[in-house]
């Protein structure tokens, strides 16, 4: 099985690579089009800021490549957000794989003392759909670090509550996206990565 992690200016590429190693899967980190297209599975990681990342992808033509992939693709965190239609973060048009919009958490004045932005830490995922969540219990804990969220929509396959219910994961055709970090979500995250590998 050939697994590719898309190389771009994202912060968590090493962590994803090491997490895959822990579950016994080797991956190649590359931005080479032919290697990406030839892969059985593609992971699109991401930690950072939306407009900078989108510009980087566009400059290298990676935006068109990612959109046209037909094998299973897993976007993680910012990777998932970039697969949406649009992000409020610096008013950024994104890849449009998912119709959902990415918005900023805006707790009201009363909530602010309890609900910090970005959300950092462990939260539950529920209403789990698709085989990405095989063998997972409802309300499993995953690790999140994000100040922007994808709204709920027709592609939502997992929901998390923070300020409001939002998309913890999205799915369309061959594309999957998770807002949390499976590479840092202990055994739950490892199970989700294994499920993706087995798709």
């Amino acid at each position: 099985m050939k697994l590719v992690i898309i190389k771009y200016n994202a912060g968590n590429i090493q962590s994803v690579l090491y997490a895959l190693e822990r579950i016994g899967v080797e991956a190649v980190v590359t931005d080479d089009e032919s290697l990406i297209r030839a892969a059985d599975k593609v992971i699109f990681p991401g930690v950072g800021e939306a407009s900078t990342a989108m510009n980087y992808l566009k400059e290298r033509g990676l935006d068109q490549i990612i959109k046209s992939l037909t094998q299973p693709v897993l976007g993680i965190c910012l990777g998932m957000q970039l697969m949406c239609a649009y992000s409020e973060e610096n008013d950024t048009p994104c890849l449009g794989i998912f119709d959902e919009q990415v918005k900023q958490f805006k707790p009201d004045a009363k909530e602010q003392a309890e609900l910090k932005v970005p959300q950092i830490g462990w939260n539950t995922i529920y209403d789990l759909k698709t085989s990405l969540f095989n063998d997972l219990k409802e309300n499993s804990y995953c690790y999140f670090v994000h100040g922007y969220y994808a709204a709920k929509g027709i592609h939502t396959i997992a929901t998390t509550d923070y300020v409001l219910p939002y998309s913890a994961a999205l799915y369309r055709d061959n594309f999957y996206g998770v807002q949390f970090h499976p590479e840092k979500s202990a055994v739950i995250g490892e199970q989700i990565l294994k499920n993706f590998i087995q798709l």
Partner: protein
Amino acid sequence: MLTKRIIPCLDIRDGRTVKGINFENIRDAGDPVELGAFYAAQGADELVFLDITATNEKRKTLSELVNRISHHINIPFTVGGGISSVEDVSVLLQNGADKISVNTSAFKNPELIKDLAKEFGSQCVVLAIDTKLESDGNWYVYLNGGRVKTDTKCVDWAKQAVDLGAGEILLTSMNHDGTKQGFALDITATLAKLLPVPVIASGGGGTMEHFVDVFNIAKADAALAASIFHFKEIGIPELKQYLNEKGIVVRI
């Protein structure tokens, strides 16, 4: 719901844990990777590795250690100690650290926080503050592991650091650290209420009730402790069970 976090802290010197302790089920408790993996399996939510050697010639040892940690540990971890430049941080993040913490170097050069946040994002920049309550009733910032007093108030520095881009505050009360008499509830509460970013309380945790108080009364987002975990005075599974019974949301 987002949970409160329990964070064991491991002090590292020359690549080894300083408080090497007697855990039957660990082969080598002096090995930060083994001890860290043990805590992760016990249900720790994050780990902090604090390098107290942190001299230039040892930096390579630290980056190699971070690399080994990130290969073996499946929860987020922060690395601190002697970090003073964007390059230092770049090496640690490339080796798999999720966050870094800065303390004295950031106080002496606040632009460092801005540079780190711009380069790597606020989410990986933890500002550690050592603070002490003085007889004038104010909490002051201390540097160099608590050896050097400053005239800056803790609240002012924390606020400035968050404005510059610090994504979390790791607050250690020197009055409470090592006493096991409970966390510094007042200054923790002040920062937790004032700041838009999470506050990690550190110093003084001695009983499970102390953790209840720091979450319920001081509204800390996370609590950090070292020796009570290392010396098995409190086990993480029992602690989390207890917090859960008290109505505090934790990951079990």
